[in-house]
């Protein structure tokens, strides 16, 4: 019921903590996975395109296969920027998620408004040892997902969010 500061931060530092949230970035696993997928798919495309054009239309045309390679280089940088832009902060009363490079978005979800916390992990994500945490509120427009977390961290976050959500629960 009380919406004070959690035990680990003192009341005196609360205002400061609210002004300067302790941001946490994503572990590098997600970046590795995305880059690997990018290289594998676009690499295959480049090889396929190069072979096909080289055999059917002549070696000059095979230069078009450089296009996917260029995309790989561009995507490599973009994925890095995007990955760096993702961060989240657990504040005393709400969770902050910030993301995006060109289209920047920052979401605040008060703990008391959470209806459900979900940890998901697809087959590829599982192979790389990653899991996503998704928060649902009564508003479907709330888009609060933290992808690419370490499963242990994802579970810790889920448990902590559920706990805080119960403590600060409010109706609609």
């Amino acid at each position: 019921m009380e919406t004070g500061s959690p035990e680990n931060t003192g009341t005196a530092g609360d205002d400061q903590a609210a002004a300067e949230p302790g941001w946490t970035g994503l572990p590098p696993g997600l970046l590795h996975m995305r880059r690997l997928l990018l290289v594998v798919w676009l690499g295959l495309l480049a090889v396929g395109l190069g072979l096909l054009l080289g055999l059917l239309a002549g070696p000059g045309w095979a230069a078009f296969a450089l296009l996917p390679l260029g995309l790989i280089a561009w995507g490599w940088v973009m994925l890095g920027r995007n990955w760096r832009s993702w961060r989240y902060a657990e504040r005393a009363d709400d969770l902050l998620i910030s993301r995006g490079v060109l289209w920047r978005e920052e979401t605040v979800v008060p703990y008391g408004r959470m209806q459900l916390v979900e940890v998901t992990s697809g087959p590829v994500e599982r192979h790389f040892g990653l899991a996503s945490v998704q928060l649902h509120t009564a508003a479907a427009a709330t888009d609060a997902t933290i992808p690419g977390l370490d499963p242990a961290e994802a579970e810790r976050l889920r448990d902590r969010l559920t706990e805080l959500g119960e403590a600060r629960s409010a109706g609609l």
Partner: protein
Amino acid sequence: MTTPGVDDAVRERRPVAERRLHPVTPLRRAWAPVAVLIGWAVHDPDQAQRHLTRLTTTTLLLALAVLVPAAALYGFLTWWFTHFAVTDSELRIRTGLVFRRTAHIRLERIQAIDITQPLLARVAGVSKLKLDVIGTDKKDELAFLGADEARALRAELLARAAGFAPETAHEVGEAPSRQLLRVPPGVLAVSLVLTGATWGTLAAAVVVPTVLWLATESVWTVLASAVPLLGAAGASSVGRFVAEYDWTVGESPDGLRLDHGLLDRAHETVPPGRVQTVRIVEPLLWRRRGWVRVELDVAGSSNSVLLPVAPREIAESVVARVLPGATVPPRASLSRPPRRAGRCMPVWWRGYGLSVTDAVFAARTGLFRRSLSLVPHAKVQSVRLAQGPWERLWGVADVHLDTGANKTVTARLRDAEEAAELLRGQAERSRTGRKDARPDRWMA
């Protein structure tokens, strides 16, 4: 507080008095086969004529002898197997002949209760009770109940939902209602005449068939285009007049009462503290008369009109009752986005406005048809700040507020620093706003 009570209820398993719907219910869908037959006859008149001439009296009687009892039996059985009961904390509905369905609706989660009376039901003296609960697409409804029984049931459900003791909930009876406002039919008619949508659909219904006639000279294409267009025009003018006729807003301890309708009467109740957003809409042609339309969003509800038309001052006083402690910010207090926002949204940026008071977040959009959305701080589910590349170039950003009614209110093109401040401040305000919010059981 509530947990021991629930445990007791589970342990005791007291027999619950189950009730059935009104005996007229089986007749509810009696018109359906007739409608199918008429539809078929209209669709294919020649063949229908041929079939009719071939029908002898014997076959007709035989068909009737089979169909009527079968339909009657089906209607009777669905009625027989539908029960409902009110327990201390729930409304239970048990229904279904082949596929059984049991719904337990928690009373403190009810967002709104409506009693509606379609025209024929009014003749028969019965009404339909509809319940709005969050998360269900379809409204749970009890159709039909005797008109008095429906009123009594609504009063009992609201009393229990309000937190009156179950023993006394029966006797509490209907909360006294005080009429706040009644929309005169003349005003409603004028307001509909002054609505652009009415003329737009009417013009389309006249122009499109004419053009088609000149182009194709085929009666069928003209009919096929004219019928739906005329239907739309009728629905947006006559239909709205009929539905919003005699619109009465009343205030009672159980919340706001809305009664309206010329042919089909509807009596809606919105309990206190359920309103997620309120929109004050001001079409261009109403501005000279100072009229506004007020819409509201309740989680899980499809009803959205609070006032079809009313003078601004009266509408504002009604809004103040719907959102306790809130006042509608005057037009002068709405701050416009910075001038450079015009680079992102030419001309229209002038329509945007924002004002944050102690109780509500108010955002205006629209240049000609102004619409002011009010969100009580306590109803904000999450706050988002979004900024695209072009917006960043001009140092502006959008702030979105998501509410429980699945509506998002947006303050567009605010100064970037102001937006960041809004994001931080709004999270704080909605947290403190929730602390002062009324409990789910509003009488407790």
